[in-house]
Every structure is written in C-alpha cells, then in structure tokens.
C-alpha cells in the first residue's frame, strides 16, 4: 500500500502520520456534518467509516509498523475512527428525528372528522329506570319476583280482596279476555303488578322480601299522562313483627336512592282493597323543595307548585290477602307498595309526555343510552 520506504522508520508510513490522521478525521467529520439526509449520511458512512475508507485503510497499515510504534499509531487511528463513528451516530439520530418529524406532520389528520360509522343503539329508558328502581331494593336484600301479564282474575282481584261485586273491582278499567266461546274467560290483562304478591307468597315461605317490576294494563286512551300499557314496581314484605314504620323506611330508601338523600316523604290516607291501612305516597319536590308553594313568582313545573309529588300507593297487607295466599295471619304481617315507573322516569328525567315513551321514536330513546 505504501510506497517503498527509504528507511524502515514508522514515521515514514505517511497515512499514519499524525497530521494525515487528523486530516482524514476532519474530512470525515466535515462530510458527516454536511450530510443533510439519511441517504447522504449513508454515503458518507461508506466513504469515511466503511471498509475502504481512508481511516480503515490506515488502520491496516498499523501492522506494518515495528512493535514499538504500533501502540501509539493504533491509539491515534482508533481515536479518530471512534470520533467519526460517534459523529455518524449523532448525525443519524438528528436526521432520523428530522425525518420522523416530517413524516408525522405529513401524516396528520383532521381528528374532528365524524365517525358515526358504527350505529349507536340504546335501551328504552323505562327498562333502565325500572332496573334502577329494582336494584335499589335488590341492594337491600330483596329478590325480584315475576308473574304473567295475562292473568287469572283470581290472582288479579279475588285473592287481593277485590270482591266480585265491589266497586273497587269495576273502578280498575280492566281489559277482559274473551273465552273461545265468546263468553267470560276469568282472565284479564293484569291491572297492576299486585297479583305477583299472591304468586310470591304461594312460591315462598315467609320471610318474603320481593319486588316485582312489570307491565300493567288499563283501558285508558293514550294521552299526555295516561297509557293503556304502563309499568309498575311492586314491593312486598311478609315477616314477623312487620309494621308501617318499616314500609316508611323502605319508601324513604327508594326516594333517597332515586331522587336525593335528604328528601322527605309523606303518607296520605287512601283506600286499596288489598291493603289496610292504605296510603298514597308523596315525596318532597326535589326541584323546589316546596319553595314554589304560594309563590306565584317562582312556579315549579315539576310539582305544579304543590311542593309534593305523588309517587305511588302502599299499605299494610290486608290480612284477608294473606289468608287467601295461605299465610298464617296470626304469625305474619306485611306491607306492600306499588310505584309508577313512568312517573319515576317523568320526574327523574323531565319526560313530559307519555307519547314519547310509547311511540318508539329513536331520537327519544337514543338520548338515554345504555343505562340511566
């Protein structure tokens, strides 16, 4: 590689001269710094750090030196090659970063574009609100009982102390089913979820703690506040030593869980054949908390400025009902309630018209999503 030496002197091997090594190093570093793309840097790498680069060639010459000179020359060339390799690595990092930045910028998208490609579904708010109501009681240890919607009159009326000729029976606006012959069948569309009370008592031994959500039917034309098909949540407790105080406690737990922790409730005397004593249940208006009463300047739409909202009926299970279900009235007593699911939805979520709940318009239902 080298020209024949006039004398065998290591300093005479030109490529290994300090000046020469320094020059090669500078050239390499300058080329690296000048490389403005990864492609150019690759060329520079081949030219200045490759197998045939001047420094690589110089390195080979070291073997030609006498042993005494090899160490020094090796150190000199090795140092230069390390510097070049380091500079290459640094430059590589810089250029890769520059390339990445450029590419990622080029790949930027409009993230505000809509993606309604996957259709969105929803559960009906009456379904989800009934589940929520149910779950409040399930959390207290209640089971969920069920019964058929087309029901024997015996379950819907007789066993619930609606005697055959009692006005309460005719006041129920009942859908009756025709027998195949066209006569009376003794079947009705259940007018309330209360027949589930009887079924629950026939299915289980006390203590009985159940709720029963479900569809109910009355011959009311559909209007803003009525529907021939609606939903109730029935509650029934039969145990030893049960009083109206526990009933009140259960109603309070429901109101607090559903509408707000510090709302008051009140019972108003009422009449249902299957409970005695009976009460209508009101809760304090959770919007105005009674502030709208007698204040025409601040009317409340939620409670109609009454201060109270009616949410259902309840009472002590009439011992005649327990008797009809074969329960020992000497030992057990109970209470029951019926809460309106539609009313709960109307109040809890501001639904103002029953039509919205029955028409199935996807805009209405979609607004409620999967859970309430």
């Amino acid at each position, binding site marked *: 590689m080298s020209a024949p030496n006039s004398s065998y002197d290591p300093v005479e091997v030109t490529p290994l001269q300090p000046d020469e090594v320094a020059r090669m190093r500078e050239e390499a570093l300058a080329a690296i710094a000048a490389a403005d793309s990864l492609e150019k840097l690759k060329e520079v790498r081949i030219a200045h750090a490759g197998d045939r680069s001047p420094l690589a060639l110089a390195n080979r010459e070291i073997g030609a030196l006498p042993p005494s000179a090899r160490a020094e020359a090796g150190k000199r060339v090795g140092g230069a090659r390390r510097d070049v390799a380091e500079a290459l690595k640094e430059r590589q990092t810089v250029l890769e970063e520059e390339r990445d930045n450029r590419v990622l910028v080029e790949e930027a998208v409009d993230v505000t574009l*809509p*993606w309604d490609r*996957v*259709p969105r*579904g929803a559960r*009906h708010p009456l*379904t989800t609100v009934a589940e929520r109501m149910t779950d409040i009681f*399930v959390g*207290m*240890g*209640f*089971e*969920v009982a069920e019964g058929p919607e*087309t029901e*024997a009159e*015996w379950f819907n009326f007789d066993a619930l*102390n609606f005697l055959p*000729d*009692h*006005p309460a029976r*005719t006041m129920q606006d009942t*859908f*009756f*089913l*025709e027998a195949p*012959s066209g*006569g*009376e*069948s*003794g*079947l009705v569309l259940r007018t309330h979820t209360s027949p589930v009370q009887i079924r629950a008592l*026939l299915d289980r031994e006390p203590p009985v*703690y159940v709720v029963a959500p479900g*569809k109910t039917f009355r011959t009311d034309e559909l209007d803003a506040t009525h529907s*021939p098909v609606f939903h109730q949540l029935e509650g029934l407790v039969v145990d030893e030593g049960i*009083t*109206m*105080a*526990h009933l*009140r406690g259960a109603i*309070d737990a429901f109101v607090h869980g559903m509408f707000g922790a510090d709302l008051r*409730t*009140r*019972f*108003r*005397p009422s*009449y249902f*054949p299957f409970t*005695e004593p009976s009460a209508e249940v009101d809760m304090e208006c959770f919007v105005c908390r009674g502030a709208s009463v007698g204040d025409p300047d601040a009317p409340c739409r939620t409670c109609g400025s009454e201060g109270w909202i009616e949410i259902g009926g309840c009472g002590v299970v009439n011992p*005649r009902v327990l*008797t*009809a279900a074969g329960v020992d009235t000497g030992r057990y007593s109970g209470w029951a309630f019926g809460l309106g699911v539609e009313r709960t939805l109307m109040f809890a979520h501001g639904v103002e018209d029953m039509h919205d*709940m*029955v*028409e*199935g*318009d*996807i805009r209405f*239902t979609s607004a409620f999503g*999967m859970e309430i």
Partner: protein
Amino acid sequence: MRVPVSWLREYVDLPVDVTGRGLAARLIDAGLEVETVDEAGADITGPVVLGRVLAIEELSEFKKPIRYCRVDVGTANGTGEPQGIVCGARNFAEGDLVVVALPGAELSGGFAIGSRTTYGRLSEGMICSATELGLWEDHEGIVVLPEGTGQPGAEAVGLLGLREEVLDIAVTPDRGYALSMRGVARDAAAVYGVGFRDPAEVAAIGTPGAGYPATVADPEICSRYVLHGVSGFDPDAATPLWMKRRLALTGVRPISLAVDVTNYVMMELGQPLHAWDRGKLRGPIEVRLARKGEKLETLDHVKRTLDPDDILITDESGPINIAGVMGGLETEIDMTTIDVVIEAAHFTATHIARASRRHQLSSESSRRFERGVDTELQVAAATRAVALLAEFGGAVVDGGYTHVDLSTARESIAIDADHPARVAGADYPAGTSARWLREVGCEVTEEASGETLRVTPPQWRPDLTDPNDLAEEVIRLEGYGAIPSVPPRAPAGRGLTDSQRTRRAVGRALAGAGFVEVLSYPFLGERDFDGLQLAAGDQRRSTLKLANPLNDDEPLLRTTLLPGLLRTLVRNVGRGFSDVALFEMGLVYLPKPDAPEHAPMPPVDRGPTAEELAALEAAVPHQPRRVAAVLAGDREPAGWWGRGRPAIWADAIEAAREVGRAAGVELAVQADQRAPWHPGRCAALYVVNNVVDNMDGGASRTLVGHAGELHPRVIQAYGLPARTVAMEVELDQLEEARSGLRAPEVSTYPVAAQDVALVVEESVPSGEVEQALRAGAGELLESLRLFDVYTGEQVGGGRKSLAYNLRFRAGDRTLTVEETTAARDAAVAAAAERTGAVLRG
C-alpha cells in the same frame, strides 16, 4: 262529590277563617281525596246588582220582539236615575226583581258589559240569565228573583252566593258516606274538633204503618223500606233559588221541584230517593227479585229484560222500578202530578252493583247503594223530602207512612287496644284507640281492664269490618306523619336470577350492536297477520282476544313481536330516518289448547289447594318471553370513509346470534321457509341441547326462532323500506339450553394454519360444509373460518368455491406438518363425503 263550603258550614261550626284550601288539606290528611278546590263565580267582577223593572217598552219593528226596560238599580249607577236596558227575554213583568250587570262588569267567560246602542236604543248594561251568572244552565230567559231577596242596587254577588268555594272529592269505595254533605261535614267536624249538626235529625211526620202499602219479600235484598207521600202538590211550583244553586254547585241539573227535592235530599244525606206519581201506581208495592222474562221500560226509554238477580219494585201491574238503579217510565212523575209517593230504602249493595253493571246503568243512586248507605237513615230522608215538597210545592204531608224494618243489629269487633299502634309501628298513649274510634262514631266498650276493645261501628260505615279497618281509623286520625321511618331488614338476598341477568345482558348486547329498544303495545288485529302473509291456519293466528279492546280493529293479543316493531319502524322512517335498527323484548300471549272455558275462582277464605292452584295455572295462557329485531336502510352509513353497507339478511341472523351469545348459547342456522320472511332468505335458528339423546351420539336441537329478509309482500303491506330484515327468537328457550360455563384450555404451543378451497354444488349450504369440516378435523382444530365464496367460470356453472382457513393447535405439543396435514385431509374427506365437496386444485 262536589261540596260547596257554605253548604258544609250549615252543619259544622268551622272557624270563620278556614279557607277552602285549608279545609281540603285537613280532609286529605283524614283520608278524603280532595282533588281540587274550585272557586265558582270567581270570574264575575264589577257592578252586578239587583234591579227592579219599572217600565217595559215593547219594540216590535225587529225580527224578534225586543224590550226596552227602565230599571231601578238604586244608586248603584251613580245617578239614582233608572237605567235604560235593552233585553231580548220575555219571562218577566214590570215590578219584577232582576239581576243587572252594569257597564264595567264582567261575567263568566270574560264577557265584558258596556254601554252600547242596539235596536235603536242606548242599552246601559244587561239583565242577566242564570247561565250568564254561572248559577245553573237555563236558556229560558232571565232570572226573576223572589220578593225580599234584597233592595234595588244591592250587590248581587254576595246576596245570591255567586262566588263559592267548592271541594271536589274523589270518594274511594270504602267511604260511601262521603257521597253526602252530611258525611263530609261529620269528618270536617272531627278533624277540627268542632260541633256537628246532623241534618238527619228530623222528627218523623205522621203515623208509622199508615202509608202506601208495601211488603218486602226477602230481608237479604232490602233491610229497610220506607214510603211517605204528599197530596195536593203544585206541579208548577218553582224550586227555590238557593236549592237550584246548591244542586248546580254539586253538579246536578235542576229540573222540577219534585225531582230537585229528591236530588237535594240525596246530596244532603246520602240517601237515594225515588218519587212516583201516586195516581199511576196500581195496588200495593212489593220489593222482590225479578222473575224470568219480566221486562221494564226505564226512564231513559230503554225496554230492559230483567235478570232474576235484579231487585225490583213492583205493583199489581208488574215491575215499576229496578230498585236503586233506575225508575220505570210508566210511573214517572210529570207536570200533572199532584200526589207524590217518596221511596227511601236500603237495598243490598252487591245486588245493586251487579244490576248496575248488567244494565250498564251507573246512576247517582246506584253509586251510593254500591258503596253502602246508612242503614238507619231512610225515615229521616223520606221525612226531609216530603217536608220540602210541602213547604215549596204547596202540598200536604200524608198522615201516615210505611216503614218495613227487616234490619238486624250490627256485630261488634274485638281488637287489642294496642293493635293500631302495633300496625303503625308507633307509640300511642293509652286510650288513643278508644278515643278516635268513638270520634268516628263507633260504640266502644273496654274489656279486660282496657286491653281489649269491643267496637260497634256506626251504621254509616259498612266498610269497618276487620281489626285493621279500625286500626286505619286510629292511625289516620292520629296522623300518618306520626309513623316513624325504620329501614326494613331483609335476610341476605340472592340478587337477580340467571334469567333476569340474561335479559339485561341481551338488552345491552343489542343496544351495543346499534339497536334501539322499543316497547310497543301488544294489541293486534287480523290485518297485522294478513300483512305478515300468514296462512289461514298459521299457529300465530290462534290468539287470545280482548272482550273490550280500546280499538275495535285491534282486539287480539300478540303472538309475535314483529307487527309492533314494524309499525314503529314505519313511524321512524316517516319521521325522516332512513337507517333504523330496533329491538323489543317482551311477552307473547299464546292460548293453551286445553285451557278451561273459564278460569277457576277458588275461595279466598283460605289458601288454594295444590289442585286448585294447578287448575288456575292451566287456565293462564302460555306467555314466553321473546326478543325481536328489525333493520332497514344502511347497517353502516356512507361517510367520508367510503360507501355505506345496507342491512341484509345476514345482519338479522347476526342480531339473533348476538342474543344467543348474551344468553350463553351458540345458535345453529339452517335454511327455512316461513312467513313473514323471504322464502329464499330465511334462516331457522336452533340451539343444540345439552343432553345427547340420539343414537349416533349427536345432540338434539330445538327451534328457537327465525331471521332473514322480509317477504316483498310484507314490505308492501306494512309500507316498509325495501329489503327490511327481521329476526325473532324465544328467549326462554335460549335460557333453557344454556349450560354451565367452563374455562377453555388455552394452549401456548404454536398454531398451524391451513387453507382449503372446496367446490360444491351451489345448493349446498355453507353451514353444512362447515359442520362436516369441523367434524372431520377432530380435536386438533382450534378454529375455522370461511374467508371467501367464489362463483364463476373457474369452478363451472351451478357450483361455488368456499375457501376456509383452518387453524390447528394441540394443548401439549407443537404439531408436526404430518399431523396438521392429516387433520386437514380428514376434514376435507368428511366434507367430500357429506356434501360432495371437491378440493379445488
């Protein structure tokens, strides 16, 4: 029951400052459902005064006769001069006392009175009719007041009671006594703790036993029967103004004095009365049950066939009244009646209730009898009526009256004195129960040193029969507000059942897959089944039928969820939504072929026996829970990402599979033909039963539903978007098929994948090829997926190529190429054998 507060005050010493609203609140607390407090006449304002007609000038030049009157209104017009008023009515004369609305007054309905020139005269005000004053409906002319009502110029509003608070009470069936002023007044007196003057405390007039002859056939139908009468009644006598006004306020239209008096006494005391023209009665009266075939034309001109359960009032001519429900036309009082017989009776509530239902006659009278009338009120009520007829009709009360008394003494009820407190869960001071029970009219005897009470309820409270009835009286009067709130302590619960959790999971899965839940009415008509193209004998046409549907076109109960969903789909499309996916979960109602004609009604004085219960259940229709879904338009919409994807039959099947997965079962699919689906695009859906029960070791399967594209004729009948697809599956059957979940073995050895393309006849369902491949591949097969279907020249006409990706893996080793290939070959061989598949070159 509408209760004018001023009328109530006649019997109760209510504090002067008690308002209608305040009274309502107290009565509500005591158990009367006061729905509204109306202020009748609140819209009458300005100068409305009494006037005396001084002179009438008849104006005859107009189409109808008109009067120009000079009316003395005192100083109410500011001048003291007579007021000139034009009037179209003719039922008054000079010297009559009338009501004048002066300019500036406003009458009911915002009717403003001013001065105006009409019929050529300046009319400064109006002479008012009863209707215009909101008194009662009367289009016969103006109101002529009786002499002595007041002086000309006096304010009419106060004098005539034009403004009046009225409580509207929804009387619950247990409180029949509240269908009278007397009953409400008694409650009002109790809640305010003030005096009560009983309007029924009137001394009988005349000799008992000397009235119109009457007998009662059976004490079970009538426990007391009273007849009293008057003679020389003036049929033209006018009903006094105050009586008309009170009747109008309670919602009863004034008719004639005789009728008005019977209504007035009914409102006052709660006792329904009937009045006959004595001249039309034939011989003695008998109260008895109807005989088969008897007929009666009632006051409403309807000829009615009577039922042997109807209580009748009869004379020698036959039936004259359906007791307690409606009178007969023949014996009605009319404008010639001068002798009147008044009937006051106590008929048995259940008979009246049945008769009222049977004849579809609900009257003020039947309403009261059904809810129970005071059993001792009849003599007083008849006496009140004849006294009023005598006073205002110029008649003479008969010297004797008829009183058939078949009543029996009321039984007493024994309760523990602390029973009400135990029911309430509250502490009441000793003596509380006895005190309140006496307050509501019970006779209370304390026994066992006050621990037991023997209680005899008053005759106007037939509803008080059980210890809890008495408890309610005590608890409500003590105040429901005094009941403490104690959380119930249920035993540890088990949460929801599997079935209940599954339903929630299915709902969430379908909603998550883009379906919107619908709750539609279950009422259908034959038209729905026709629209679904169901054949005449289709099982789904066998339905339960409502006796009294809301809509005569829809008397049937659904046997499929689809019609409700399809109608809702159409409604949404009509509202501008072209891409709609809906689902519904709910019961269908299926008649049981062997159900009895009438569901049994076992006794309720004990629990039903096992046999009785079984008979009841046999009568209740089968009501399985289904879930159904419909889709129309795009399943995925078009957008900036590219084209949309229309919903197709496969989306309906996938929705059903979604339901299956949520319920924990895998659905198997097979081609089927069934309305309402497209015969070439309909899938039957099966679950494979857990129990292996057939000979070749294969599991049996149960049909759980169908899915696919709807038949074009269904699309047309319902007005659906083209290519609408639908599915319906029976959730109950999915739940039955579900087996316990077991954790799978997850192998970490490498997978070996193999692709095969098989050529089969076009008619071969891919599902069968897949089944064969799975069966042939054996246990090493981890998964299998159809990734391409090709038809075309390369495979030849009438054939198709199905390309599958098979993935093999073992749980304990890495598979060799030989093992994988052998498994693949076995799979292909099975497919070849079962479906004629040929491996494509």
